[in-house]
């Protein structure tokens, strides 16, 4: 082929463009995804003079193709000849930043942000900044929303006159007529504030922030809450009270629950940003209100933050604030009417014990833990159990064991298999903390019952759980307590249970070691090779393959090999297959 010399003219642009124009969308998409290959074939100069103009002109395609294109162009700098020529990529990306579809636009903006760093300061002013201005004053809202994401990347590297223009454009977009643009501007307000000089943060950003935070649409107002975190971080402490706090107080009491939800959701960030003094005076009462909000969504979001909020309180007054202000609200939430609120609280409440110490935990928190352990909603109980380790460190788990057991038993028998699955996952942890005696007495039977659950996922998890228990309690314990029960199931009339025996052996053999495996498990497996159900037989083959490495070679030759050979001649095709596989893996042929 003539291509050997890598001649540029080998592939006329027309042929390549035909590929990009193919009628079949899928083929077009494939071609666009390999745009770099095409560009490479054309060389940098023809990519700049022929390919890019073509791409700029024909941006009327399926959104999926446009998305791929927008992504590709972000990595095109080398293919057009390096940073010197990177501005050639701006025209197609500018068009892509104005299309209707959000994902395409966002990707175009992402690529523009990426290549903005590859522009020299001069190119940034000559090529990039005018593009931002054009987008910012575009007719349709799409281009103006895209512009919002580009201010912060060019602002730091342009002259002060251009900076003033950029600030003006941003101001305009913050008071844009369409709420879509105001939302875009509000969501970029924090990012933009970070690159501005402090004097402009105070003069420009604060007024924009105040205006957006009192917008007529709650979807705009709630975005201002996010910006509040960044802005508060940038300002010196003494200015926060006058510049930020009035707006924040207003947001925490907004008439729309969405805004209050946002405040609750960002509470830890806000707390860090405004510092300890304001936290004590303002955020504590605000947090109390959010915990008592009339909408469950808001209460749940606030409940999620209880631990983090308490943790970050100033040390000198932490305990007093928690005991007098936060704990009363928490107590009420324990008996909330909404299960999401209770379950959010249950996922963090245990963390309070480390903050409050042993005595307070026993006196004040323990009753709450116990109440939540008895909650009607399984998620609440589960969340408490999954965080037991926090309490264990402070007061020891024994304090809870009386209430813990009924809760565990009930979850273990819950009608929802996902709940059962979740509690199984905590078994090794619980076993470790409660000790082997307690376990044998109370929990062992549960673990065995899961092995015959009617949902496969539970049986599988139960098998895995046994392995972890053996790792914790040792092989001897395994031999005495669980191996006999597991092997007993080999005679069960239900073939699913017989298979569970095999799965358990697969999982346990390594942890139990050679002796137990050879003496106790292997005979059972070999015997099961005569099972009348083919599924059991091929699982015997799989099991032998799995436990083979644990056995010694004499035993393999004398006992395993004949059985596998017999199975390899089975009439069932799957049994044959797995037997043959085991023979070859164990090198018994």
């Amino acid at each position, binding site marked *: 082929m003539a291509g050997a010399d890598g001649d540029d003219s080998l592939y006329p642009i027309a042929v390549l463009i035909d590929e990009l124009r193919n009628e079949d969308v899928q083929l077009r998409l494939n071609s666009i995804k390999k745009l770099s290959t095409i560009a490479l074939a054309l060389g940098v100069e023809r990519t700049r003079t022929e390919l890019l103009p073509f791409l700029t002109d024909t941006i009327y395609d399926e959104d999926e193709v446009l998305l791929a294109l927008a992504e590709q162009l972000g990595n095109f700098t080398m293919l057009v000849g390096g940073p010197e020529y990177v501005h050639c990529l701006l025209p197609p990306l500018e068009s892509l930043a104005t299309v209707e579809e959000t994902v395409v636009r966002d990707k175009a903006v992402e690529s523009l942000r990426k290549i903005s760093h590859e522009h020299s300061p001069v190119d940034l002013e000559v090529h990039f900044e005018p593009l931002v201005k054009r987008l910012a004053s575009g007719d349709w809202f799409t281009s103006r929303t895209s512009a919002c994401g580009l201010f912060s990347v060019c602002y730091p590297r342009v002259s002060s006159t251009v900076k003033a223009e950029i600030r003006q454009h941003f101001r305009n977009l913050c008071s844009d007529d369409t709420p879509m643009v105001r939302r875009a501007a509000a969501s970029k307000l924090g990012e933009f504030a970070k690159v501005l000089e402090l004097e402009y943060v105070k003069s420009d950003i604060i007024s924009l922030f105040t205006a957006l935070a009192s917008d007529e649409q709650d979807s705009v107002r709630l975005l201002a809450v996010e910006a509040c975190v960044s802005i508060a971080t940038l300002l010196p402490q003494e200015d926060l009270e006058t510049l930020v706090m009035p707006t924040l107080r207003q947001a925490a009491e907004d008439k729309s629950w969405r805004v209050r939800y946002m405040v609750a959701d960002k509470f830890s960030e806000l707390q860090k940003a405004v510092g300890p003094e304001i936290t004590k005076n303002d955020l504590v009462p605000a947090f109390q209100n959010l915990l008592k909000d009339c909408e469950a969504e808001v209460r749940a979001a606030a409940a999620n933050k209880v631990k983090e909020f308490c943790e970050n309180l100033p040390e000198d007054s932490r305990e007093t604030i928690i005991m007098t202000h936060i704990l009363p609200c928490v107590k009420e939430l324990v008996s909330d009417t909404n299960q999401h609120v209770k379950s959010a609280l249950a996922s963090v409440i245990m963390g309070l014990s480390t903050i409050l110490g042993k005595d307070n935990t026993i006196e004040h928190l323990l009753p709450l833990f116990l109440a939540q352990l008895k909650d*009607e909603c399984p998620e609440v109980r589960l969340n408490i159990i999954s965080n037991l380790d926090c309490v264990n460190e402070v007061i020891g788990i024994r304090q809870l064991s009386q209430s813990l057991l009924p809760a565990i038993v009930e979850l273990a028998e819950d009608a929802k298999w996902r709940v059962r699955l979740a509690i199984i996952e905590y078994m090794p942890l619980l076993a470790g903390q409660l000790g082997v005696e307690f376990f044998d007495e109370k929990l062992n039977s549960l673990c065995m019952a899961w092995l015959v659950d009617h949902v496969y996922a539970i049986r599988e998890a139960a098998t895995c759980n046994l392995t972890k228990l053996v790792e914790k309690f040792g092989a001897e314990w395994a031999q005495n307590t669980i191996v006999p029960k597991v092997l007993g199931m080999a005679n069960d009339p239900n073939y699913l249970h017989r298979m569970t025996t095999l799965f358990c052996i697969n999982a346990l053999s390594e942890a139990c070691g050679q002796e137990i495996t050879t003496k106790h498990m292997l005979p059972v497996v070999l015997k099961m090779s005569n099972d009348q159900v083919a599924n059991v037989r091929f699982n015997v083959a799989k099991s032998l393959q799995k436990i083979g490495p644990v056995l010694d070679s004499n035993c393999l030759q004398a006992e395993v090999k004949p059985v596998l050979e017999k199975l390899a001649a089975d009439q069932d095709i799957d049994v044959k297959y797995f037997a043959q596989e085991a023979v070859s893996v164990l090198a018994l042929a």
Partner: protein
Amino acid sequence: METPTKLPPSSPSSPTTGFSVPSAEKVDGFPRRSMRRARQRRSHSSSQFRYQSSQVELTPLPLIKDAPVAELHDLFCKKLQQCCVLFDFLDCVADLKGKEIKRAALNELVESVATSRGVLIEPLYPEAIKMISVNIFRTLPPSENPDFDPEEDEPTLEASWPHLQLVYEFFLRFLESPDFQPSMAKRYVDQKFVLQLLELFDSEDPREREYLKTILHRVYGKLLGLRAYIRKQINNIFLRFIYETEHFNGVAELLEILGSIINGFALPLKSEHKQFLVRVLIPLHTAKSLSIFHAQLAYCVVQFMEKDATVTEYIIRGLLKYWPKTCTQKEVMFLGEIEEILDVIEPSQFIRVQEPLFKQIAACISSPHFQVAERALYFWNNEYILSLIEENCQVILPLVFGTLYRVSKEHWNQTIVSLIYNVLKTFMEMNSKLFDDLTASYKVEKQKELKRERERAELWRGLEEQQERRLQSLGEASRNQKNLQEREKNSKNEPENSAANTT
């Protein structure tokens, strides 16, 4: 700091959501739709209640019909003020007396504004609008079910409906009253008012949306100064729905209003209206929940076409652009809409779109989903469409022939196969010469296609080989360059290093 009054933590009416699972559930743990629905069937009150500072005790006022004429307006006013008090409906036994007084007062107001003349005098306008605003404008509560499916799930009903309904009824009668004076109302029913009214269309309660629809329609009809603003805000709601949230309960109702608005557009269409069609109505077809408002949407689209045939091409090309790729249910809806459009298309417009359109129709015919194929093939049962096809047989037949020929041999569904035979027969009768030519050249075309396929594979293979070589040489070049730079740097650094060592 005083905390606002709030709902008591547990009111008797709020059911405790127990987890008693019916025994049928125990088979597997997946929540059944039926169960979820049962739990959802509870009503919801909005957040507004919390903002009432303190509960006022209502005392019954004299009846309006008994009032002497001189005191009538004063009494009417007092009743309006009385109706500004809000009640907690989640707690169904709270303040029953107060609720009853307000209900009776609202009934009287409705009755009075609907039947007696001369009641609506200027001073009553601000009071009436205030009463309406206080009652209906509220932040809608969070949805009980975050993935609420309007087709499957029961909507959450507004708890305060017994009062709210009467307020809406009053508002409607107020707007429809022969005494209603737009010039007076426009001072109070302003842009801010309309914006809040539009936001209520997101209510999950269909009864509320129904009232809102009629009311907004009246407002649009009577307050001319608000028309452009209303259209713009509806645009914004739709755009937000399409590109941001994909969630808004009142799309169908708003489209219904727009349907009749479009009907009244003046000709030639303003560019604002065309933009609305192309940039809002057409993209609305991409919504996941299209089935809920498709009928209303298709009506609007057809209205546009009937107004001005020149928009046909925009519409068809737009639909083709957003043609569903994976959702066959939506594909059937699109085909339905295309048929509605073709029913009223002008032949001259048809010619402009026939090529891309019939390529898509051919693609639908070869869909393995028989409902899609069937819906597309039904076009040939439509006489008007058939006449258009016949007129343009020379163009259309070559576009669909290959598909029909292939699908007739391989479709799994017998109904489709027989429908295709009928279509082929129709074509044969239309133009037997062309039909025979296409049959004869079918194999050759297939061969050509395969050849193109091979050429393409060859081209890409070559390109990729070349890329590999280039990347290799580029890699080498950059390595060389790096080495060079490193060597330079080392030679520069050495004296410095040695200098540093000496200090």
